[in-house]
């Protein structure tokens, strides 16, 4: 069972090995568990060699996009005379996801070590760890661990005696899901409103302070020390399916499920076995009705689709969804899908940065329509309007928050249309909506 439960025998604890182990929090305890050996090894290698190991390992971004990490690092041109920056994206806000929080509050030194290795590989002297403001405990542990690392000379102008400068600064966010988007994160770090930027230019060309920047997720960076220590082949071997998806993934399981928590399994695991053997299935006396496998932004799956899925990047796509952040949200047969999709739309409407018209207006409009349907005031035209809105909101904005709002609406209407229709009497048409609304109120 996933943390906070005991480790299930079918899990592969790499990142989660020390969850719940208070002694692993301190520098001393971390070193006793092999910590910082990887950084020491890295500082004796050529930066390009480190990037090659990560490329070989097949590590892909664990924040949601799944971009090959080694490739991302190789975009940082050495010797260009510009200051390079690394940003650790610790703004975890995708509904259903709570893995980075655990990584930071139980193994902050793993994150610091991963950041330090990455920073050295991409010639970045300064790393910013952007942690969302609500993460009180991760902020406290990361700040404390950074201080410990500086005091021990692991960080600073002469990292571990290598002559290289590695600085890490914790930067606290202030409440904005959109700041998990890499360009919005950079704007926020610069002291601006968290509006995403148009790409190109890409961060590796012009990122924070207009300088070459790499942004990586917490889980991605936390995997780096183990990969360096155990080798790329080892990481590639942690894979039961497609060779394009290697290593382990921390899945955050929540909602209506018997054993919620973070589970770490190798890529290629059977989603059916995962949901029932490891997570315990639906709560007592209930059955699953819908599963979202990768956070609120990925398509909702029917139970049938979920039971047939393989847990890796390609597998989830083949089964009609995406791996995303790995936030597994379970809905049982007592849930009202219209109500939950309306609540997800409200989330996106609240979090829209409001730059793009389609997103600003579309998320709010979708929310209004969905809540009206939920409350019995829906019309037959509403579903067509929602799908039309969804099309206008997809692929036409500066960032994909807009697309993310459309996704549960599209998949919800596609796969749970009967629940929407049940709330909309066929006799009701737009003409009499006002009269009906008064009658319903």
């Amino acid at each position, binding site marked *: 069972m996933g943390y906070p439960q005991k480790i299930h025998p079918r899990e592969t604890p790499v990142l989660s090995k020390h969850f719940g182990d208070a002694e692993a929090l301190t520098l001393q305890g971390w070193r006793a568990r092999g910590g910082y050996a990887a950084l020491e090894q890295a500082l004796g290698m050529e930066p390009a060699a480190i990037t090659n190991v990560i490329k070989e390992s097949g590590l892909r971004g664990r924040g949601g996009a799944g971009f090959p990490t080694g490739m991302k690092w190789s975009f940082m041109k050495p010797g260009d005379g510009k200051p390079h920056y690394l940003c650790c994206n610790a703004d975890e806000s995708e509904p*259903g996801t709570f893995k980075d929080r655990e990584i930071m509050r139980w193994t902050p030194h793993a994150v610091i070590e991963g950041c330090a290795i990455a920073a050295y590989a991409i010639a970045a002297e300064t790393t910013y760890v952007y942690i969302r403001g609500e*993460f009180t405990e991760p902020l406290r542990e990361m700040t404390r661990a950074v201080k410990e690392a500086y005091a021990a000379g692991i960080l600073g102008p002469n990292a571990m005696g290598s002559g290289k400068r590695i600085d890490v600064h914790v930067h606290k966010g202030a409440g904005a899901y959109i700041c998990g988007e890499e360009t919005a994160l950079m704007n926020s770090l610069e002291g601006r*409103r968290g509006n995403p930027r148009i790409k190109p230019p890409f961060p590796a060309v012009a990122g924070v302070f207009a300088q070459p920047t790499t942004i990586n997720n917490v889980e991605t960076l936390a995997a780096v020390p183990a990969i360096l220590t155990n080798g790329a082949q080892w990481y590639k071997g942690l894979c039961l399916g497609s060779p394009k998806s290697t290593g382990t993934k921390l899945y955050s*399981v*929540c909602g*209506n499920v018997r054993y919620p928590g973070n589970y770490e399994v190798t890529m290629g695991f059977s989603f059916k076995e995962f949901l029932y053997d490891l997570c315990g299935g639906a709560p007592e006396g209930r059955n699953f009705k819908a599963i979202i496998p990768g956070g609120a932004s990925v398509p909702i799956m029917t139970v049938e689709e979920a039971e047939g899925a393989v847990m890796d990047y390609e597998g989830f796509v083949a089964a009609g969804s995406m791996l995303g952040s790995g936030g597994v949200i379970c809905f049982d047969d007592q849930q009202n899908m219209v109500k939950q999709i309306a*609540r997800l739309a409200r989330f996106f409407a609240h979090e829209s940065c409001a730059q793009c018209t389609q997103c600003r207006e579309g998320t*709010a409009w979708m929310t209004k329509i969905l809540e009206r349907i939920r409350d019995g005031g829906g019309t037959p035209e509403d579903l067509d309007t929602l799908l039309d809105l969804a099309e206008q909101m997809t692929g036409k904005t500066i960032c994909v928050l807009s697309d993310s709002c459309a996704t549960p609406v599209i998949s919800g209407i596609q796969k749970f249309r009967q629940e929407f229709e049940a709330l909309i009497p066929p006799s009701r048409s737009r003409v009499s909506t006002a009269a009906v609304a008064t009658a319903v109120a």
Partner: protein
Amino acid sequence: MSDAARDMGQKVAPSELTAGHDPHGAPYGPVFVGARRAELDELLTHYPTKMAALLPALWMVQEDRGWVSADAMVEVASLLGLTPAYVRGVVTFYTMYHQHPVGRYFVQVCTTSPCNVCGAEDVVRALLERTGCGELGVTSPDGRFTVIEVECLGACGFATPVMINDEFIESVTPQRVPDILSRLK
């Protein structure tokens, strides 16, 4: 808040209509003196621009005063070489900076879908009742509590999480509410 948010029926706290000055009319004393000034000066060495210290500086203001007043925005602006209007633009973007005083205990309950299906709305109801607030966003008559709903707090497996000021409490149920509140004076 944005017009879209207002359209969706978010409540406007009465004091949001004031200019962001101290509601009791007390004169403003600067935040960044002494130790706080030293802290800000050290912080500025972490970034190549002064502007990048804006969010951290605003946090220092809120830690000291409990909210970010218009006077504080003017102070921060002048220290960082920004305009007060720019600073207000940043403050209004982020949900965690209070633009008016709130109850001594600012209670935030996550009600996004993963927590929603685990009874988050029941937790909200229990809190509204036990604190005496009655309504979201309205400070209780004794000035101790303000309760709001927030979006995903990133603790979905520990439903329902509740933040009270900086304290992050996991696995809150309606049954636990009286106990949790009784610890707060």
